[in-house]
């Protein structure tokens, strides 16, 4: 990566409804994480302690599908505060395993859960993060600039995409790097 840049890129990562596997694959960049910190500043991530999504993000990797109203709200904030939004992994790109519940009726699903425990849960309150009736891929909620498919995307394709983004180049993934699963 070019190290002549004067100002560090403001990089962020976020997770919505998923398993964190894409973040784990990101950590599989291993020693390359050191190169990354040369070029970019991590301004927000579930792996760091800044609790509020900041303004002025250059690139954000978003893992997971949109499954509840919290995700919906965060997705909207992400769009309004970021230049480039990356749909990171299959759950963000298609809904994937997170959306396997879509064939079930949400009320039936919750009713099953309520009845199964020996205790009882009071009615779901309207101010709480409500589950969406269907789990949605990210681009159905906000415009997305880049897709990195994979369950999870392997570190090589993450590196190919992230280095391009940090250097201001278009992301061009080879055919092999565009596969789902």
């Amino acid at each position: 990566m070019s190290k002549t840049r004067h100002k560090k890129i403001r990089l962020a990562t976020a997770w919505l409804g998923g398993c964190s596997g894409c973040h784990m694959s990101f950590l599989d960049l291993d020693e390359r994480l050191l190169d990354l910190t040369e070029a970019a500043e991590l301004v927000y991530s579930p792996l760091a302690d800044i609790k509020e999504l900041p303004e002025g993000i250059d690139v954000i990797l978003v893992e997971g599908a949109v499954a509840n109203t919290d995700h919906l709200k965060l997705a909207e904030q992400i769009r309004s505060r970021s230049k480039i939004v990356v749909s990171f992994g299959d759950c963000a790109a298609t809904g994937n395993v997170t959306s396997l519940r879509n064939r079930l009726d949400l009320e039936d699903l919750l009713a099953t859960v309520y009845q199964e425990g020996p205790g009882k849960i009071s009615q779901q309150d309207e101010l709480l993060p409500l589950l969406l009736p269907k789990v949605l891929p990210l681009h159905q909620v906000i415009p997305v600039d880049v897709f990195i498919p994979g369950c999870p995307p392997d570190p090589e394709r993450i590196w190919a995409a992230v280095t391009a983004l940090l250097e201001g180049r278009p992301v061009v993934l080879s055919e092999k790097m565009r596969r789902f699963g």
Partner: protein
Amino acid sequence: MTQIVTIDPVTRIEGHAKIALYLDEGGRVVDARFQVKEFRGFEEFCQGRSFWEMPGITSRICGICPVSHLLASAKAGDAILGVQIPPAATKLRKLINWAQIVQSHALSFFHLSAPDLLLGMEGEPAKRNFIGLLQKHPEIGRNGIRLRQIGQAIIRLLGGKSVHPSWTLPGGVGDPLSPEELSEIKSMLPDGFHIIQLALDLLNDMLSKYEAEIENYGNFPSLFMGLVTPDGGLEHYDGLLRVMDSEGRLVEDKVSPEDYRVIIEEAVEPWSYLKFPYYKPHGPDGLYRVGPLARLNICDFAGTPRADRELRQFRRLSPGGTPVTSSFHYHYARLIEILFGLEKIAETLEDPEITDPHVRSKAFVNQSQGIGVIEAPRGTLFHEYHVDQHGILQKVNLLVATGHNNLAMNKTILQIAQRYLNGSRITEGVLNRIEHGIRVFDPCLSCSTHAVGQMPLHLQVLNFRGGVEVELTRD
């Protein structure tokens, strides 16, 4: 009027959660709740699918411990087939499981918790993360990367990919181990042994500095549960269930994992969808802990030379030889388990049978139910499947490690909050201490909410903005 302080989201853990602290008029903490904010629905949406698909689907429950779900699912599948899997397959499954213990524990210690331990519990929040650690202590950070990489690389060599490999299946594993792969794994181990020794020294040198934390971070008597080998040794893949109390008495021993429902029941609290498992004979207060701390407490010995030496050291933490009760020592227990995992990997690679090409037993559905159990990095994991004659799932129950620790995590954050927090002194640093009380358990919330989400009781959704936001009203 009561004051509620929230920490939202809890960071440097896996998954979505917040903490709500309830303070009375005098600013004293009266209650603390660890609230998990997600819903996955795995147990429900898997009904109607084939049990053959379950390893691939359930590994997607968690990106940190996919191998645990793969293995528990495959073992439940073995039981449905009614087969004994080939010896080489058992050994290979154990190998990938220890590799996962190494990578997952390395992640917990270096990437998620070391920023608190080495940069300060109340250190600067913008720097208090793994990147900050790499900048301040580059050697330690690089070692963390390397140790985790070794575990991930072994998983990749065996399973084809490091996250969500689909190599384990009912009846065995997909491919045998080649001699080339074997020597590649071997070549990585010296680095691993070197780094884990440095990490153990590092932590041991720090312990005297953390006496207050050891005393207050989830330090209470409880039961401990996990698997042990038939002769009482440390176990992660098979074995029998044991429950020990904090005096060291065996409350349960040699319980077949298939009978887990005899000793475990799950409760529901009105403020959370997340279930609260408890030790059945003690009723809903039957709090028990699982995971590294529990496993080291309940076993009679580790079974490898270096881990046994460390275990003896670990046991000196509790005068009188009773179980170690501080949850802060999950960190130490985790490092000992990494050492144990590396030793077991080295030992297993010397077994000539490990490269045997016969790695799969084939059969059709012979049993209508199967229970698969495994020690995941975070504790005992159960997969229970009921199928029809075609192998179509009629009922699925998953009881996961983080769920077992739910009661203990709630008790831990209450203890820390009562020790460090009062109405007149609410700082970001103190709130981070409370979060660390969750991090010691290394919870995996995508796992724990496989079935159910969470719902706090109170009405306000509170945000945490660049410091502390206090919500003031609640009747």
